[in-house]
Structure formats: structure tokens, C-alpha cells
């Protein structure tokens, strides 16, 4: 019996090593190039036109709302006197948080040699960029005098006043801008070999020209690869602390204030965990339908990938849940009655429903992912990811807006009510995000082809030998 056990352990160990290939068996390099490129090369399917007309309309709505906002005043939103920041900053933090999964997948998992990242990093990075674009709209447009926002740039000016580098908003501006630019570079660097593929496969003049320009003349020689790999490694190395810093800095917007519910030292790690949680949820939200539409993608983005992402979701969701508990505990333990009152109002006050939704979506629902069943059934994963998306929005709303509704002086307490412009602007950013993603699907390879090829068994330069 003992012997049998040993054997079974050995067998299962071997199985563990061999199980779940990163790409479904039988998919060759040629197939990968052909299939991934064909998505870009074929005619746009009808669903694509339907989808983009919806998201495009929403994008136009966004433009209309922003025009109205700038022409009329911030008052078209529901922001008011205790609640100076409401949906604007809620949405900003929501979107910037979503961005984090992309960089995490492409940089941190790269550094930690997680090969499963290769199938999803391209889409996740694209998602990062689009989310950051959506996010950047809010801090830019929410200021009272948009046309004066160049005051934020440290250039000599007639006012004889320099910027205040103590302001977390200044940090925020630098962090978001840096994050966006570095993400663009990282993404584009990763795209170059694949753009070369599209260039090489191009049949029309326009495509040849377009992808030819974008591919910069990539040839895939070892002389290029060795610098390329170094650059990619450096960018990954730079992005890793960057991604951790960005949401930390965003959290400083609140943590560096004096407002109960904002002034919390737990915020940086808690925000980062929340961002990864929300980001992975959004990656799943996008990839699961993409996989359903482009069925063969299922061979690249396998259930195993989804399973792994679910584990990340479960892990970060639990961190977030722990942070919620810690906030409560610290408010109580601090003995500061203002802190206590704020957190008590979160749970029992007029916005209790937002808090309850947040707990349900971010803490309770992800617990289902302890079960393999939920992790491997994409419908369930999709549902849970949707919950996480909603929950993360509410988490930001609870922190940003509801903390402001009740702070130090009861005389100044006041509720927040969104206006139609608030709602339409948010819907508009969803539309913009969707539009950008649909364009991405149509014009750029959704999966990082060269990296997937590199993890195929046939890519091994020493087959049979020790790696």
C-alpha cells in the first residue's frame, strides 16, 4: 500500500508538470500566425459593426457630455459642497485601477517567468492603455477651468507661482502620465515583431504601408532579438515598480488628506490589490466574450489561463476583503470618534447599500472561486468578474464620495445625487473603452504571436535536452 502511494505521488507529480499545456496540442507556429493574423485580415464581421456602432455612439455621447461640461460648468454634474469629488474621481480611480492588470500580466508575470501570461498579455496591455485613456479624461475634465489646467505643468509663468509638489494631485498627474507613456512604449515594443508578421503577410498596398511603417523594419535577427529582449526586460523591470506606484499615488489623493475615511495608511497596498482585482476582472470580462466569438482562441487562451486568472482574482479579492476589515478595525482601534463615526456611517448610514454591494461583489462573490467548478466554467467566471467590476466601482464610490458626505461638521453634511450628465459621461467612457478595444481587435493582433510561439514545444532549441 505504501508503495502504491509512492507511485501515485510520483505519477501525479509528473502529471502536474505535464498537464495543461499552454497551447492546445497540435497548434503549430504557422497556425498561430495564420489564425491570429486572420482576425485582423478578414472582413469585419457583422457583430463587429453592430458593436462598434453602439460603442461609437456612446463615444459621441461622451464627447457631447464633455463639451457640455466645459461650456457650462462643473455644476452639470452632481458634485456639491461637501462632495467636491463624486463620480468624476470615482470613475477615474475605477478606470485607472482596471489598467493595472495589463501591466501586471505583462511586466510582473514576465519577470517571474509565468509563461501563461503570453496568451493574454497583449489584450491586457491594450486594455490598460484604453482604461488609462478613459481614466485620464476625468481628472483633466473635472477641474473648474479646464483651459487653465496647463498651470499644472512646471513651466515659468506670469503668475510668479510655482506648482505645489506637496499636492498629491501633482503626484497623481505625473504618475498617470508616466504610467500611460511607459505602458504605450511597453506595448508598442511588444507589438513590433507581430507587426512585422502582419507586414509580411500583408497583401494590399495600404496594409503593407501601414504595417510596414509600424513594424519599423523589424527582421527578427538575433542581433535585434538580443537587444530587444534586454529592452523588454528593462521595460518590464521599470513597469513593475511603476504599476505598484501608480495606484499607491492615486491612493495618496485620499490618504494624504485629513478627511476621516480618506486619511488611512492602509490605502496604498489596499488600492493596488483592489486595482489588480478589478483589472483581472476586466481582463476576464473582455477575453471571455472574445474567446466565444473567435472560438479557436480558446486554444491559446485556455481554461487553464482562466483558472489561473481566477486564482489571482480570489487572492486579490481576499486581500481587498481583509483591507475592508482592517479599515473597520483600525477605525475602532484608533479610538478616534470621527474615524469611528465615518466607518459606522458607511455601514449603517444613508449609503449603506453601496457598502453592502461592495462587500457582496468584491468579497462574497469571489469566494466561489475556491471551487474548481466555478473557476473552470467560463459563464460562472464571467458572472463573478462582472460582479467584481461593479463592486470595484462601488468601492471607489464608497471611498471617494460617501466619505465626503459626512465628515467633521454635521452642519455641512450633505448627500450626493448624480445627474444625467454624470451617468452619460460614465456610459460614454465605457463606450470609448469598447470602441478602442474593438478597433484594437480589428487592426492589431490580439494575442502576442511571437511569445506564444516561444512557449510551443517546437520552439525548444534543444529538444529532449535539459532546458
Amino acid at each position, binding site marked *: 500500500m505504501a508503495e502504491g502511494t509512492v507511485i501515485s505521488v510520483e505519477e501525479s507529480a509528473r502529471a502536474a508538470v505535464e498537464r495543461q499545456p499552454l497551447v492546445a496540442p497540435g497548434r503549430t507556429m504557422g497556425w498561430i500566425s495564420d489564425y491570429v493574423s486572420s482576425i485582423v485580415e478578414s472582413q469585419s464581421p457583422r457583430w463587429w459593426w453592430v458593436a462598434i456602432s453602439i460603442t461609437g455612439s456612446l463615444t459621441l455621447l461622451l464627447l457631447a457630455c464633455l463639451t457640455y461640461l466645459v461650456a457650462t460648468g462643473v*455644476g452639470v454634474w452632481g458634485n456639491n459642497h461637501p462632495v467636491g469629488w463624486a463620480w468624476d474621481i470615482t470613475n477615474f480611480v475605477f478606470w485607472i485601477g482596471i489598467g493595472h492588470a495589463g501591466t501586471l500580466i505583462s511586466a510582473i508575470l514576465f519577470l517571474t517567468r509565468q509563461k501563461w501570461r503570453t496568451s493574454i498579455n497583449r489584450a491586457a496591455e491594450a486594455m490598460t492603455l484604453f482604461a488609462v485613456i478613459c481614466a485620464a479624461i476625468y481628472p483633466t475634465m473635472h477641474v*473648474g477651468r479646464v483651459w487653465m489646467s496647463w498651470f499644472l505643468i512646471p513651466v515659468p509663468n506670469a503668475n510668479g*507661482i510655482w506648482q505645489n509638489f506637496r499636492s498629491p494631485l501633482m503626484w497623481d498627474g505625473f504618475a498617470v502620465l508616466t504610467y500611460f507613456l511607459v505602458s504605450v512604449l511597453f506595448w508598442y515594443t511588444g507589438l513590433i515583431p507581430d507587426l512585422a508578421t502582419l507586414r509580411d503577410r500583408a497583401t494590399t498596398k495600404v496594409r503593407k504601408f501601414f504595417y510596414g511603417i509600424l513594424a519599423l523594419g523589424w527582421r527578427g535577427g538575433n542581433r535585434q532579438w538580443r537587444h530587444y529582449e534586454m529592452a523588454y526586460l528593462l521595460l518590464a523591470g521599470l513597469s513593475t515598480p511603476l504599476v505598484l506606484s501608480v495606484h499607491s499615488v492615486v491612493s495618496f489623493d485620499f490618504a494624504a488628506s485629513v478627511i476621516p475615511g480618506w486619511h488611512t495608511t492602509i490605502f496604498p497596498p489596499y488600492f493596488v490589490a483592489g486595482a489588480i482585482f478589478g483589472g483581472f476582472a476586466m481582463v476576464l470580462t473582455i477575453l471571455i466574450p472574445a474567446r466565444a466569438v473567435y472560438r479557436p482562441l480558446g486554444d491559446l487562451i485556455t481554461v487553464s489561463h482562466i483558472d489561473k486568472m481566477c486564482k489571482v482574482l480570489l487572492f486579490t479579492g481576499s486581500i481587498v476583503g481583509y483591507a475592508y476589515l482592517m479599515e473597520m478595525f483600525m477605525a475602532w482601534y484608533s479610538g478616534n470618534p470621527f474615524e469611528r463615526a465615518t466607518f459606522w456611517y458607511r455601514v449603517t448610514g444613508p449609503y449603506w447599500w453601496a457598502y453592502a454591494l461592495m462587500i457582496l461583489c468584491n468579497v462574497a462573490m469571489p469566494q466561489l472561486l475556491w471551487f474548481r467548478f466555478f473557476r473552470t466554467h467560463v459563464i460562472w467566471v464571467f458572472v463573478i468578474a462582472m460582479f467584481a467590476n461593479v463592486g470595484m466601482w462601488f468601492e471607489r464610490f464608497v471611498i471617494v464620495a460617501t466619505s465626503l458626505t459626512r465628515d467633521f461638521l454635521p452642519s455641512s453634511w450633505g448627500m450626493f445625487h448624480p445627474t444625467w450628465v454624470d451617468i452619460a459621461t460614465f456610459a460614454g467612457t465605457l463606450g470609448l473603452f469598447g470602441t478602442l478595444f474593438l478597433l484594437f481587435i480589428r487592426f492589431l493582433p490580439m494575442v502576442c504571436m511571437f511569445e506564444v510561439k516561444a512557449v510551443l514545444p517546437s520552439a525548444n532549441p534543444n529538444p529532449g535536452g535539459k532546458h
Partner: protein
Amino acid sequence: MKRKLPHPPRENHPALWRSFAELENTPEFAHVIEREFPGGTARNGSGLTKRDFVKLMGASVALTALTGCRRPEAQLVPFTKGVEWSVPGKFLYYATAMPIRGGAMPLVASTVDGRPTKLEGNPLHPASNGATDAFAQASVLDLYDPHRSRAVKRGGRDVLAGEFEAYLAQISEKRPDGLAFLVERKNSPTRDRLRGELEQRFPGLIWSEYEPLGDDREAVTAAFGPGVRLVPKFERADVILALDSDFLSSASEYGPAYAAGFYPRRNPDQLGAPMNRLYVVENHFTCTGGMADHRYRCKASLVGEFARRLATRIVDLTNHSGLATLLGAAPQTKADFDEKWIAECAADLARNPGRSLVLAGGQQPAWVQGLVFSINEALGNHGMTILGVADEAPPAAPLGRLVEAIRGGAVKTLFILGGNPAYNAPANFALRDLLTRVPEVVRVGLFEDETSAVSEWHVPAAHYLEAWGDARTFEGTYTAIQPMLMPLWGGVSELEVLARLGGNAQPSGLELVQQTYRILSGAASTDPKDAVFLQGWSEFLRNGFLPGSQATAKDLAFRATEVVRLAEAAAPVEAGIELVFLQSSSVDDGRYANNSWLQETPDFETKVTWDNVALVSPATAERLGIRANNFGLLQKVTALNHEVDFDMVADLITLNAGGVAIEAAAIVAPGHADDSISLALGYGRKGVSALFENVGFDAYPLRTSESPRFRTAISVSGTGRTYPLARTQEHKSMEGRDLFREATRERYKKNPKFVQSMGLVDAHNPPTTSLYEHPRLTAPEQWGMAIDLNTCIGCSACAVACQAENNVPVVGKAEVRRNRDMAWMRIDRYFAGSPENPEMLAQAMLCQHCENAPCESVCPVNATVHSEEGLNLMAYNRCIGTRYCANNCPWKVRRFNYFDYNQRPLEELYWGPLAPKGMADSLKMVKNPNVTVRMRGVMEKCTFCIQRIEEAKISRMVQAGPRNKYDVPVPKFQTACQQACPSDAIVFGNIADPKDRVTRLRQSDRGYVTLKYLNTQPRVTYLARIKNPNPAMPDAAMVGMANGPAGGHH
């Protein structure tokens, strides 16, 4: 763009211009003017074209503070030549006064380039402590109100002003019968003199005065004979009982000095005189009730019964026979009172004979007032705490007599000078219908209103800042009312109309007043060449009053039999729900309905703006099914904590009496008497002005001449509908946060440092320390403020003064509902105790000018930084509007311009660029030129009136000349709020100067800063409120307990 002045002025150019468009005189601009003055000033034929008007504006700067001499108009010069005394950018100050019901409020008007922008109290005047009230502060806006009437109308059509003058001349000449006057109550010797002349000219003339609010003089006349006025001496009273009398906020009645004697006696630290004790019996919270040491909730209709029971006790204690006789005659009503309360209050009064003071509200029935006079008589207060002075104003016919005359057809021509009787006369007179029966009604008024609609003639009236006048203040001082500019829209003054009727073809207000002055001052002539006259007259104008002209003292001879007669005529009060008619803290009796500053000033108790609401006690609300918190659920209102007014919608109820029904939105008012509903007058006007269309509810239809204060036996029913309200403060409780701190006198004596033990975190934390050294503020002046909560009554005068001084915009009801009011200074009002009978706490809240200001570090563009003088500065042109500073302000005193409130019509804010841009020219004139008018998208907040600080510093530099400027002290000046405060609760100054009053107050035992634990080091210190309860009273244990029985130790 280079400014080009037309020189020499050409004929078709205005000599003065207000905008480049006007300067260029383009057709487009002519069109704009056309739109701007739809009534058409240029067409009213008064000879005053708009061009003249701007000239005259300039003209008025010829008035100088030094000589007080107004130059004859013939010598007026346009602004293109330098006007003597006028220095661009410098204010000129003139003494004047605002006519009020009880006389006048002495004022100093600040004018710049010939236009008054700000009114202050006249500190030289004996009937003023240099303070004002909210109404006076806002009255300058009325002057510039673009809705004021501009054209003389006859039968609804515009006519030339000359036609009206001819009409007056014709009456004067033909002397027809049936002439009657209906005027506002004023105490104007010139008007009285002209009235006397008219009464000789027109023997059958009826002169009637009507005021919907204010004291009824019937009881005083009955009790003390005609020609007597009562002047209470609060500074002499140790114990004060106010029966439905809001004497602390009666500045609009008698001027701010009326109750000024009260405040020094509230100071627990003052040596010599003991702190006074205030008992208040009232049905709803007034400012006075908020200050009370003991407050008793009592239906307004039962105040008489309350006084009777009190008198019974006092008779027991004093054996005063006159009072005993009166008690036999007074009507008795069944009522349950706290007899111990009455007994102990009576005992306290009786213990202080000659040092006590009992006051009854002037609108209470005459017999109640007579009874109170009798109580004072029994307590020996007459001649001690209540003085009598001669009232020189001749008696006028009450409105009732005029109404009878109209009904009898005796009135053929009725002049209605000021007021709005068609709207606010007692409902039983049905005056609006009655006026149509008078053949000729001539109405002189500021606005084309309800009365104009039923008048043959409507003539625009001159604002008091536009016309000469005079008045006696409540204690009789003869006071000048000087115009600051010529009538903007060709209004005529009351005096001019009266003089024309008296046969004066070209009356000059100046001469009319000069004649009266000559009589009163005993001067020989009014010849301008007479040096003696000129000297006296100049001083009169410069000081604003005639020294030594106070009314002579009169012994108060109490006529008990007359008072008994009043009491015998009275009947017991009907049971059931009563409706109490209040003076609105925003629109008075409706006269300020068009004043947006006042409309947006929250009511001191309910914090409702732009509306009046029916106040109901929690218990009555529950009984009537009125929802407390408008949450859609009938919530329990027994706890003040955790109570949320979500959407600020109130239940609409119907109030029905005698077949007349009105609707009103009802809200639950803590501390209100049960079975009583209070509703302020002056709202709910329809079809008069866009500004107050659909604003509030009209209570006048239920008000009758028999009982102006209350109506009994009201039936109340719900309508099932709701009404949106705009409130600036939703939460009632302080949530145990000890922002407002108070104690009793006894506890204060025992533990003078008690405030330091209060505050949630403040009291327990070790002293807050900083990691690093703070930059030292090196300027010799370090500005700071102290606010004494012991004397702050929450009257909002400071808030309106701030609005006037600092060009704070009005946002309108819809925006207030969205919590976007812009007030830099607000009065936070909390209730403490049981919702049935709580204490009301009023705390003036403004930028605390923290030395370590949290707002500063979060601004990315350094738009808010600190000055060397400790001011938290705000650079509007640097601000981009991130609103982070407002979020990070623990006091939430920063205000963000969510829209272009100054540039767009308030009802079209959401139209953005599609709405017309720009504000009415006349409203531009009220702006303080020393304060930036903020645009949308920037943050603003209290600056400690930095323009005044800088002005003072500049004049120091001028004084210092070549010397080191710091050797010269900064001249004394006040912030706008400080200057307006009638109770001297706000003190501003240099905290680096150990001799400065503010420094001493900051070091007072009562001094504390709010939210100390944040270590922001506010520059605003509050002085804790000390209450002086009578330990024998049944509610003594509940007094001074706003911070809980443990006094802050939580």
C-alpha cells in the same frame, strides 16, 4: 484696448460711460439699452434720461464726508473732470439712515464713484452701536434691483412724469373732498410737518398708517396715555422675561442699539454687574429663545393665559393691588402649564424688583400687553428698567378707520405711499376689492405690485438712498437720511409728493428737510449763506444726527383702569390648533421679497432658503401625520441623532379657518409648541415678480385685524403632495462632537478651564506635536478672530454683510437644493437635548485661517497659500478648480463656483453658453470694486476681508511717509461681519499685539478652537457659551448641557 475718453465731450456721447459699448454709442448698444430698460426710463418724461442718471451718479460723489455738504445740482460736473473729494478706488463715507417701523437705523454708506455699495451702522449715533441687521445690509441691493418700477403709470399705461406732477398740482389747487392717505409707519418729523400742513389745507383728510408687523401702540397708549414710548433698559435688568417677544432680533423694528444693553450683561467674566438671566416663553424658536437660560414652549394664543398665571403668582409675592384687580378682569383659559416653572420664574422676578424686566411681544393682544405692563408696575420696573420718553409723532388713524371710510364712500382720492396694503392688509378688510371702489388711488411704491394693480396711478418711489428724508430713532434722536445718488429710475420721494400736494410746485427734498432741521435745531434761517446754519447743518449731515435731540423723558403714569377695560373686552382663547404669523427673517413682511441676498439667507432656525415653511412640533407632526424627515417613511422624531433629511421635500398641508384655506409646506421644528403652527409672512406672492414666483406660501389670507399674531381654531389636513425645500443645513445634531461648547455659570465658576476638557479627541490627546518646525510667520500683524458664542444670537447680519462686502453670488433655490450655496460666512445651527424642548446653538462658521491649513498642501497649483500675516490666501486667477482644497477642509467653508453665477441668469445656469451672458448694469453697481467678482470654476472663501486689511496697511504707509512703516500702527478697522454684528460677538484684530482685544479674548478661559486635535492651529477662536440657569427651575438640569451632562468627558 486703450481707454479713450471723448474729450471734449461731444453732444451725442454720454459724458460718463459704464462700458465701452456705451461709449461708442453704437446702434447695437442702443438695442441693449432698450432691452435693459423695458419700461423705458428715457420715456418717462421726468427729464431724467439715462445720460442724466450716470451724470448724477457721478454727481453724488460731490457729497463729501468732510463737509457733508451736498452741492447744488447746477454745479455738477461729469466724471471726465476730476470730481472733488473723489479719489478713484477710494470709498467716501456718508452718514444716513434707513427708515424702519420704529424710527430709523443710523447708517454710514460707503460709496465709490458715486454709488453706494455697502451700508454700515453709524457708530457715532446714540441709537446705534455701529451695527446693523440683515435687512439693512441687504437694502442696498434693493436700490439697484433691476425689477424696480421705472415708469409712472396711469390706468396701466406709461405716462410722462409731468402728468403726475400736474395731477398733484390740480389736487392741491382744487382741494377736493375725500382725500385720504395710507402710509407706512415712520417717525419722520418732516413728514409729520407736511402732514400737518396738508391737514390744514384739506380739512377732512384721513391720515392712516398701517404696518403688518411691528408693535401695536394701542396698549401703550391705553396704559400710559398718548404720546409716550417705552424704552427698555436691558443693561439695568438682572432678570428678563420675554413673553412671545423676540427683542434681540428687533433691529428691524428699533435699530440695533435697542437691545445692545443686553449683551454686556451676558458676559460671565464682567466684574461688577452680575450676568443677567433670560426667561423666554414662546411658541417657536426665535433668536431670543435660542439665547434663553430658560425657555418655555407655549402656544402664542396662550401667552396671555401664561402671563395671567404668572401675574397670579406675582400678586401672591408682592400683594400688588392693581395687578390683583386686573387679574379679576382678565379672561381665563383652560391650559396646562408647568406650574413650578411659572412659580419659580415669578419668584425670581419678584426677588429682583426694579431690576427685572417683563416684555410682551408687540403683536400680542392689547390686554396681554397691558397685563405685562401691570406686572412691571407691580415689580417696580417702571422708571427703573423701563423708561418712558415722549413720542412726538402725532397719532394716525388705524387702517380699520380708513377701511370704514372707504366702505362709507367717504374716500375719493387715496394716496398709498409705500407699503403694499393690497397684499398685506388683514384679510377681513378685503382691501384689494375695497380699493377698486375708491375713484382715484395713487400708489407710490418701489415695485409694481399687488397694490399697483388696483391703483389708478402707479408712481415709482425713490429708495431711501435716493431721496432726502429724516427720522427720529426709537429714543427720539433726530437723524438725517441723506441720499447717495439721484433716483436711478426717476422715483419720487414721499416728501416730495406731500409737498406738491401742499402747494409747493418745485419741492426740493433737501429744502424740506432743512426747514425741519431749522425748527428742531432752533437755527435762525435756512439761508445757505448763513454761516451758523451751514455749520450746524454740515455737522448734522456729517454725524448723521442732531446731538441732544433725544426725546424728553416722561414719567410713566400707569393707568390701571384703562388696562382693566382692555382685559374686560378680551375673551378666552379658543382651543385647537393655532396658526402663528411670524416676521420672516428673510423678507420681513414681504417688503424684501425681491431681494435675492435675503431670500438666500437661511432662516436662523430652519435653515430654509427661498421659502417660508410651516413649523410644527414633533408631537403635533406625528399626530397630524406630517412626515418628519421627508424620507418617504414616517420616521420617529424622538431622537435628534442619526436623523437625515434626504431630499428636503416637505409635506404640503392645508390650513383652514373660517372657510379660507391656504397651503403650506410643513417641517418639524424641534422646540416648537404643540398644537401650534408657525408660518412667516411675506411669501407666496403670485404674478408680481419672476424672482419670487412659486416661492413660499402666503399666510395673509388667514390673518385678521382682530388678532394679528395668531389665528386660533385652525383645521389642518394633509394634501398628500410634497414640496421641495432648499435648506443649507440638513443635520440637526452636533453628534456629540462639541463644536459648540457651553456650560452653566456655576460650572464655569467651579472649573474655569472647562472648555479644555471638551471635544471628542481634543480633551484626551496629549498635546499635538509636529515632526518638523513650522515656518515662522514674521509679519508684525497676525490677524485673528474671536467669536463669542455667548452673545451670538444667530441673526445672520454678519452673513449678509459678508455677502455685500465680498460680492458673494446668489445661486438660486435649485442650486441651494443641490448644496451649492456660496455663503462665505454661515451660521451653523445645532439642537441639543430632547427634540421636544432642545437648546438651540448658533455658531458663526467661516474660514478658520488655520496656520497649518490642510487646504493649502493639496492644491497642485499653489492657488491657496499662506501669507506672512497668517492669512489663508486664495488666488482666484491661479485656481483651476480641482476642488481638492474644499474636500480637505474640515470645516467645509470653501465654496466652489459650479456655474457662472455672476454672468448667467440663475434659471438658465444649465443652458451654458446658450443663456444670455452678463448681469444687469444696475447690479454691477452694487459690487464692491475692491473685491474680485469670481468666475465659474474657481474656489472662494472668507478672506478675513483682505481688502480692508490692505486698505488699512496702505493708509499706514501713507501715514508713515518716509519713516519705517512698521513704527506706525495699522489704523483700526473692522471686518464686514464684525461691523455688522449687533451683539459684538465677532472681534477681529492682531493677535500678535498683546493689547489687542482679540488677543485677550483668545486667551480667555472660555476660548477654544474647533477640531483642535487636527493641529491645524485655527486663527478663529470661539468663546464658549455660559448659561445662567435658575437652579430652582424644573428644567435647570437641562440647561447648558449641549455637550452632555458629563461636560465633554466622553
